[in-house]
């Protein structure tokens, strides 16, 4: 299986938190659910993967290219969203999109219009006029409209109603079937149960599990335990 993204020994220290030796890979046509409690290091990992945070050490490669020095080319081929759109609150969505698409030679106007309709977004609205859930969709709209081969989404389902969450998870599955690698962070285990192929579980800045959902169930879930129950148990054990 082809690894589109490989992270090796990523380390990032803050005065009160340390992300230690994070290693994993993202494969074409697989959905990886990145799970962990608040403050476990999900966002820091994702930010480090995208150069938004400067890692202390470690290797980040996309499409067999090191991220450092190839940022422009790599970012053309990945879609990234950090939850809700929280920039340019007073500009119309169509104005933000008009500027954004000039950066992507691969911008797919047809896909953009499709997602616009699917998400019921009005491009004449400004982000400040949208609910939190609609802001998430707006950010996803930008991430999905340029034929990204990897989608990295930080808590994309937070703030979405159950119907929108379901729609979004269905979109992930569609994208996976087209060969896109999807990494989404969440603390909602049902999202992972519904669509993830692989689980990346982080605890206190360390990856404690990176395997397929089936392997996770076989190795980490006790008899009759659901994914949520086993993760809650592992979190409780970790606190002791």
């Amino acid at each position, binding site marked *: 299986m082809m690894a589109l993204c490989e992270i090796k020994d990523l380390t990032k220290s803050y005065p009160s938190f340390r992300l230690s030796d994070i290693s994993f890979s993202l494969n074409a046509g697989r959905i990886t659910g990145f799970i962990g409690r608040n403050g476990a290091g999900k966002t820091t990992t994702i*930010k480090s993967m*995208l*150069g*938004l*945070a*400067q890692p202390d050490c470690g290797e980040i490669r996309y499409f067999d290219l090191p991220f450092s020095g190839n*940022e*422009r*080319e*790599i*970012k*053309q081929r990945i879609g*990234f*969203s*950090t939850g809700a759109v*929280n*920039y*340019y*609150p*007073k*500009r119309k969505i169509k*104005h*933000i999109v*008009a*500027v*954004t698409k*000039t*950066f*992507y030679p691969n911008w797919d106007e047809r896909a953009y219009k499709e997602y616009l309709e699917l998400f019921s977004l009005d491009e004449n609205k400004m982000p400040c006029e949208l609910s939190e859930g609609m802001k998430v969709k707006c950010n996803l709209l*930008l991430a999905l409209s340029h034929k990204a081969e990897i989608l990295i989404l930080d808590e994309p389902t937070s703030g979405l109603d159950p119907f929108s969450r379901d729609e979004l998870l269905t979109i992930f599955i569609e994208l996976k079937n087209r060969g896109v690698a999807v990494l989404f962070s969440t603390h909602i285990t049902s999202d992972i149960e519904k669509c993830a192929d692989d689980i990346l579980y982080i605890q206190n800045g360390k990856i404690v599990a990176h395997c397929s959902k089936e392997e996770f169930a076989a190795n980490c879930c006790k008899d009759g335990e659901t994914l949520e129950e086993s993760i809650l148990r592992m979190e409780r054990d970790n606190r002791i």
Partner: protein
Amino acid sequence: MITLLKKEMKLTASPVSYLFILFGLLAFLPGYPILIGTFFLCLGLFQSFQSAREANDMLYTALLPVAKRDMVKGKYMFCIVIELCYVILTTVPVLVRMTVWSDAAVYRSNALMNANLVYLGFVFLMLGLFNLIFVGGFFKTGYQFARPFVAFIIVAFFVVGIGETLFHIPALSALNAFGFTHIGLQAGVWLTGTVAFTWLTAVSMCRAIKRFERIDL
């Protein structure tokens, strides 16, 4: 880089940044400290940094397919374009006052700085200092702009003070030359200002890129 510049101009810039280019025409006013017009231009650019921060522009730009260093270069490019527009506009009154109105009584009796090539040299110096102190200072953190702007205000008024004072010293009165008199000296100061602008901007941008690469957004 052109795409980033267009993004800065269409999406990020405050309209005030464009409007304040018109302060270049203040150089027509007699009895007015004309270098203040350059300070107003810098105030207009400051407004763009302020509105960019309010709009969370850094995060938006970081999501685009650009390198982190490009984000810095984009902001510098925007400032340089606005600054050069201002210089071009303020050169109009300078040329008019140096040629057709060089003997106009209102300008001849002007106690303050004359609009000549020396003035343009000072304009370049002040813009270079803005790029060094304010823009460079902003990229130490990527979000704090009050302290670098206060530092720039202090330096800017010091430069205005020097510009308005030097020619009152008898040995330096040629700095306030009318028309094409002392053109060698005028051109020398203009050239020095241009070199200072280029050097200060380049140094500031190189430092800002290095600093910004280390910042966590």
